């Protein structure tokens, strides 16, 4: 984990309201693992005050890429950065997806901007001989980001592309038909999606690692601000920024709300 001034080498809109930024950071690029994130100082003033966390979407030589949807002030400011500008970032942060345990088929399940860590995860998985199938859920076709992903199956809320329904429904349907050989699910997306995956997992008994989000003050373990509740653990809470963001989905009591 280092704090570093990193040069923006590219900023582009990759889809409806979704932006990608490339950052030159050999130090982070050389050690980051899929599922980890960086914490970005988006403003030179105190508004917003706190850094904003973003998953590393891809690594190319010296550069890391993040993608994000413009949500509030922080992401709006970020979308206005220009190549050549310098960003103060901290990373790599958090744990990562485990790509080395025993499974043959990686099922990447992402909702909305939750697709963010998958291109990098896919690159790493492709180094092994695992099968990769990617399930993407989005509001509608304009929100689907398939770049750098393998064997993509799409579900949209409005039916404008692929399956008409949620991505977890699509996954359930596929499981109810044929079975994937020795699968493991890698999930990232909004809380309601994680909650339905968690339910599905209980039905189909497939191992699943999921990336969780939480409001964060520091991102590196000093504020205790980002707990998720553990199931049956005397410690009761784990920190998303340090113990996570990736957890065995069965170990987490997923909160209600979005």
């Amino acid at each position, binding site marked *: 984990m280092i704090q570093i001034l990193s040069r923006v080498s590219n900023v582009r809109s990759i889809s409806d309201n979704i932006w990608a930024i490339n950052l030159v950071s050999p130090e982070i690029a050389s050690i980051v693992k899929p599922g980890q994130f960086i914490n970005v100082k988006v403003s030179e003033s105190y508004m917003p005050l*706190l850094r904003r966390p973003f998953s590393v979407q891809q690594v190319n030589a010296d550069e890391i890429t993040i993608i994000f949807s413009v949500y509030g002030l922080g992401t709006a400011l970020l979308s206005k950065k220009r190549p050549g500008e310098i960003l103060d970032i901290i990373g790599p942060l958090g744990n990562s997806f485990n790509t080395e345990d025993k499974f043959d088929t990686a099922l990447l399940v992402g909702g909305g901007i939750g697709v963010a860590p998958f291109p990098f995860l896919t690159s790493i998985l492709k180094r092994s001989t695992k099968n990769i199938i990617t399930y993407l859920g989005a509001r509608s076709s304009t929100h689907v980001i398939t770049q750098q992903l393998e064997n993509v199956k799409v579900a949209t809320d409005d039916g404008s592309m692929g399956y008409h329904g949620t991505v977890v429904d699509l996954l359930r349907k596929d499981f109810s038909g044929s079975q994937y050989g020795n699968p493991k699910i890698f999930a990232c997306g909004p809380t309601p999606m994680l909650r339905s995956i968690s339910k599905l997992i209980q039905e189909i008994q497939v191992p699943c690692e999921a990336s969780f989000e939480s409001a964060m*003050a520091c991102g590196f373990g000093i504020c205790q601000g980002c707990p998720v509740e553990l199931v049956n653990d005397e410690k009761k809470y784990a920190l998303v920024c340090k113990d996570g963001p990736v957890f065995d989905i069965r170990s987490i009591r997923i909160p209600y709300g979005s």
Partner: protein
Amino acid sequence: MVVNTEVNIGVLKLNNPVLVASGTFGYGDECKEMVELHKLGGIVTKSLSLNPRIGNPPPRIVETTGGMLNSIGLANIGVKKFIQDKLPFLKSIGTSVIVNIAASSVDEYCMVLSLLEEQEGIDGYEINISCPNVKDGGLSFGTNLSITVEITKRLRSLTTKPLIIKLTPNVTKISDFARAASDEGADAVAVINTLVGLAVDIRTRKPKLSTITGGLSGPAIKPVALAKVYEIARSVKISIIGIGGIMTAEDAIEFMLVGASAVQVGTANFIDPSTAVKVADGIVLYCTQNKIDSVQKLTGAMQY
């Protein structure tokens, strides 16, 4: 010009006046890769209680204009685990180590301090009687003058080490509490802990923190913190450690000018964990530019 950066907080000598505030720097080890820890004036640990505390349910953090609300609820590993797992590293850094204590009863404060008294390498204690985010103790202590007196008196009798009482701004007259601490023999007061605040999510119509109210920190509160330090400086003689919204050396110098002998950097650590180091450097630069040969001379040097 060589600037003397040493300051005294009662019997405690600090290498420089910039510490990191309790709850905003963990136990020091989390930041070792990023921060030149030996350059800190001191590290104040997360508040420690007798037994580990799991803290409050999420959400614990909300950002506000120029600040943030937190409701951590004193989540900590407990004093025994601290002594075992964290103190050895802290001792090795070469900066002053101040252990912050929080408790739900006067007896618990005493027990924690007694356990720490058996250890070497602790340079002083900061007593948190001002946490707004716990049901038992916390603010109900810090807003009660006679309990403030009792806690200070009891702890003073247990240690000759520097004793710092950390005060809450959520009172009508903070100088009364500083005077109580002073009268009972505290070496210093640390001012301020967070202001009680609240935020609502109008979409869900729920409070944004699980505990409804939380503690407000960050640059938004700096003017309030400066006013509290100023009020205390005019009424007690013991040292004041200024806290509240310090992001830059300029901010820290403001605190010293109104009467603080040292300062603590809190929320800023979340944004840049090296803030305190940069603030310490900036104070030296200011002294050099203004031909001030000792940072101590800044304390109370406001012209009015």
